[in-house]
C-alpha cells in the first residue's frame, strides 16, 4: 500500500463528508467551510492520480492549481453573499 492508495481512500471520504455537511448543516458560514473541505477532497483524488506514475503527471496538477485559485475567489463571493443573507434575515426577524 502506498501513500497514493491511502489518499485515494481518504479523498472520496473527505468529499462525501464535506458534501453531506454542506447539505445538512444550517449555518451558512459552516456550509461554506464544508464546501471547501469537499473541494480539498477532490483535489486529493486528482493529485493522487497524478502521483501514480514515475514522474508526477503535470496535467492534473495544473487542473488542481486552477481549482485552488477559483475556490479562493468563489469563497470570497460566497462569504459576501452569506453575510448579506444573514443581515437581511436578522432584519426581517426583527433583531
Amino acid at each position: 500500500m502506498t501513500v497514493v492508495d491511502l489518499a485515494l481512500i481518504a479523498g472520496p471520504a473527505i468529499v462525501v463528508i464535506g458534501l453531506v455537511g454542506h447539505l445538512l448543516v444550517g449555518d451558512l458560514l459552516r456550509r461554506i467551510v464544508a464546501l471547501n473541505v469537499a473541494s480539498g477532497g477532490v483535489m486529493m483524488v486528482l493529485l493522487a492520480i497524478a502521483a501514480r506514475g514515475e514522474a508526477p503527471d503535470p496535467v492534473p496538477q495544473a487542473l488542481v492549481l486552477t481549482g485552488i485559485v477559483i475556490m479562493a475567489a468563489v469563497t470570497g463571493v460566497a462569504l459576501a453573499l452569506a453575510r448579506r443573507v444573514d443581515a437581511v434575515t436578522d432584519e426581517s426577524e426583527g433583531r
Partner: protein
Amino acid sequence: MSLEIGVFDGLLLAGVVLSAVVAVLVPRRTSAVAVFLVFGLLLALLWARLDAPDIALAEAVLGGGVTGALLVDALASKQAEVPRRRSWALATGIIAGIIAFLGMGWVVSRLSEPSGQLPLLVDDHIGGSGAEHPVTAVLLNFRSFDTLLEIAVVMTAVFAATAVSDRSWTRTLSASGELRIIAVVLLPVVSLLAVWMLVAGTTRPGGAFQAGAMVGAGLVIAHLTGTRRTSTRGPWGDALIVLGLVVFILLAFSTAVGGAGWLVLGESWASTAILAVEAVLAVSIGVGLARIFLANRREPGEAR
C-alpha cells in the same frame, strides 16, 4: 520521493481526515474556521508529500492565507439562528453519503494503470514550449485556454463581490505607528517573494498564481496598515483587474489571426510571451483577491 508508507504518512492522512470531520461537525463558527485552517495546512503538507510542490505553495498561500483571511473576517458578523434539521433529513443524508462513498471507492478501485502518455507528451514538447517546468508549460502553453477561462471566472467573481458590497469602502485607513512599522518590514519581503515566485515559475515550482496570491496579500497588508491608494477601489482597480483577461484575449486573437493558430505560441517568442502573460495575470489576480477581501470587510474604520 518514494511513495512507500511511513509513520509520517499515516499520521498525516489521519490528521487530514480527522480535521475534515471536525471542521464539518463542530457547532461553533469560530471553531469550524480554526479547524479548517488546520485542515488547509495539513493539506499543503500532503500535496508536498504527493510530489506536487507547486500545489503545496498555492494551497499554503491561497487556502491558508487568502481563504483564511476571508473566513476570519466573516466571523465578525453575528451568528444567525438556524432551524434544526429533521431527523429523517439527517438519516437520508448520511445514508446517501455512505452510498456515494462506496460508489466513489468502487470507481477509484477500477482505475487503470497509469499509461504515462500525457507526461511523455509533455516531455516531448517541453523543449520549445517556453518554460522548463512542466506544470507552468501545461498551464500557459499546452492548456492555456483553460487558464484564460480561469482568469475570466476570477474576474467575474471579483466583480460579483464588488457588486454585493456597498461599493464605497474606505479608501485609506488611519493606522497607528506600530502598524506602519509592520508595513515597512513586511511589504518589501512580500514584494520580493512575489516577483521571485513569478520568475521562478519558468524553471521550478512557482508561477503566476502563487505570485498573484502574494501580491493580493501584500495589497491587503498595505491597506490594513494605512498605506494610501491600496484600497483597489475605483477605475484603476477595475482596470488592473480586467487587464489580465484582456491581455490574454489579445494574445489569443493575435496568434489566431497572424500566427499559427489560436494560442499556439511560436518557439522563438514563447518564453517571453509566457513570462509577460504570467506577470499580468499575477497583478490581475492579486488586485482581484485583495478587492474581494477589502470590499466586504466588516467595520471599515480606524485601524489600531
